[in-house]
């Protein structure tokens, strides 16, 4: 399927979606900066995912960029493609059921639910990728420990002669 409009260079092929599978997980290379439209989507998903727990000090976008920096280049490109699709109304509708839902927390939480239970491979894979990035950016933060009741690493001493 070829799209018209600002993203007419983007081929929405089954393969592109299938490739998205590779992004899920916590994944290493160059500095990465999100585009303004991607930022809106990430911010909305992050807030919904960590609702009630988002620490005041949180800078979700910085944390998400830090995680994206560690993802293999090809997989990051696939994720970036997915986010282009989520910021372009027709493809966003195809993937979420809404044209531009990202300012409405209720719709965002519905989208997450829909993705979790979806039987469509592209939605399953975007869900897995988004979940992995947000989980890594949030639960990788010491600040999240208090919310979940993890007391932190135990104390220890260095054994003699350890390299």
């Amino acid at each position, binding site marked *: 399927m070829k799209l018209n409009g600002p993203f007419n260079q983007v081929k929405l092929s089954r393969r592109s979606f299938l490739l998205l599978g590779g992004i899920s997980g*916590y994944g290493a290379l160059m500095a990465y900066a999100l585009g303004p439209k991607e930022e809106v989507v990430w911010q909305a998903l992050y807030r919904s995912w960590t609702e009630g727990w988002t620490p005041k000090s949180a800078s979700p976008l910085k944390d998400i960029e830090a995680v994206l920096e*560690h993802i293999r280049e090809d997989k990051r490109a696939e994720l970036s493609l997915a986010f282009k699709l989520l910021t372009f109304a027709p493809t966003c509708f195809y993937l979420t059921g809404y044209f531009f839902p990202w300012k409405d927390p209720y719709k965002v939480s519905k989208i997450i639910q829909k993705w979790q239970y979806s039987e469509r491979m592209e939605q399953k894979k975007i869900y897995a990728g988004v979940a992995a990035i947000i989980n890594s950016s949030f639960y990788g933060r010491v600040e999240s420990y208090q919310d979940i009741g993890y007391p932190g690493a135990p104390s220890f001493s260095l054994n003699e002669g350890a390299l």
Partner: protein
Amino acid sequence: MKIYSLLKDREQSFFQKSDHGFDFVIVGSGAGGGLSAFLLSQYGHKVLLLEHGPFVKTADLSQDEAKAYPLLYQEAAARKTSDGAITILQGRSLGGSTTVNWTSSFRTPKTTLKFWQDEFGLKDLREDSLAPYFEVCEKLLNIKPWDISPNENNEVLARGLKRAGLKAELISRNVLDCQNLGLCGLGCPTGAKQSSLQALLRKAPNVTIVTDAFAHSFSLSEKKKVKELTLYPRGKKSGQWRIPIKELIVSGGAINSAALLLRSKSPDPYKNLGKRTFLHPVVLTGAHFKESIDPYYGAPQVIYSDAFMSEDPRELGFKIEVPPIHPLLLASVLPFGSDQHRELMSLISKTNAMIALQRDGFHPESQGGEVRVDGQGRVHLDYDTSEYMQRGFRKALRVMGRLQFAAGAKEVLAIHRHAKKCQNLSDFEKEVENLSMQAHDLTVVSAHVMGGCAMSLKPEDGVVKEDGSHHHLENLSVFDGSLFPTSIGTNPMLSVYALVHKLCEEKFGKG
């Protein structure tokens, strides 16, 4: 031992020399590469050991998961099968996976060795012929049964097994003066874990190590010999370094070793390279208890059960253990959305998890995956879970739920996209019966990657000979977990060590 970094020390005179006269160049510093370097230096050879990942001093290891995973794991612990369905944990720092592994130490099951003899003709790999090598490796790595009380996470498994009339077996560990912290997966911060770095490389004076060095490919001479190896600094596409080769030992671990040979277009007339790559695919159940479990503290794996490993490896079989649980690790395996995810995370201190690792490579419907490299040289693993394997997943979930309820769990949850918490065994069994066992629905992970450069008697059946040397290249040997023609059927570290010790001694040892 001298350590350089190709990333940081590129300007040093060491890298300007065209030939250092190394007798052996080894790619990879994990179980296979670390032991090979140690032995070859003892035999008096001049050895160069190359490692893709960094050297992280024990004192510099971070207990923060967000820092540890990108530093110590392949693809920052986000390596996946090409369809994204199975997460693969593999180490990538000096010491390889032995730096981050959970220290469970088992000899190769005799049923596995028997299968190799019967099916692949590997007559030299017998319990008696390998026994002396297991003994030496157990000494070198200080492998002993764990004699401190298990943590509560392991205690749940012990209790569940006992109440189900099964035996709780004790795991041996490769540690020295262990402080029972439970941080093994983030790299042991005390130096107690006897990784290949702490137990072997530290004591190998004739070895020069270059870290942050990615072995991209090698060139071949007309005489079917490896001529030169090309490396890049980690994460870079420039700054190439070439090293002439007398004898090359490939120990990059499964997936990576096959990828190096594929990128180098090494001869593979029968198209065996990268095939039969195994994972011991793991499925999980979580259980909540009234009392605290604190699954993040204490030696991670000390109790196991092989009650569900049938004697005949062609039949379904899985080993049951528990994994350590840390926040990010837990968050990444839970396939649930916002509210449900937060609720489960907030119960971390009362959570027990069990894992069932399924042996693969024995049954006709379980022939492993295939490693590929793309035009950019990036590696991919295609691995499908067959209906046969899915039957094993379902059975394993049922068994683990039963053990958790028997141990007193309040509720049990299959780690599956559609699963709900169940308050009793009969609801749990009904639920498991109805869940799809397809990857992507069910969370499937692997920390045991094996095969891809299988040993075989004849070139038609594998990549290397029974002595580890390449079927078609004179001066190349593969010494790591990618040699196995099937999965091991138990945690594989000690099998890699013992097999590599035997091959290295027989091929390159004195007398």
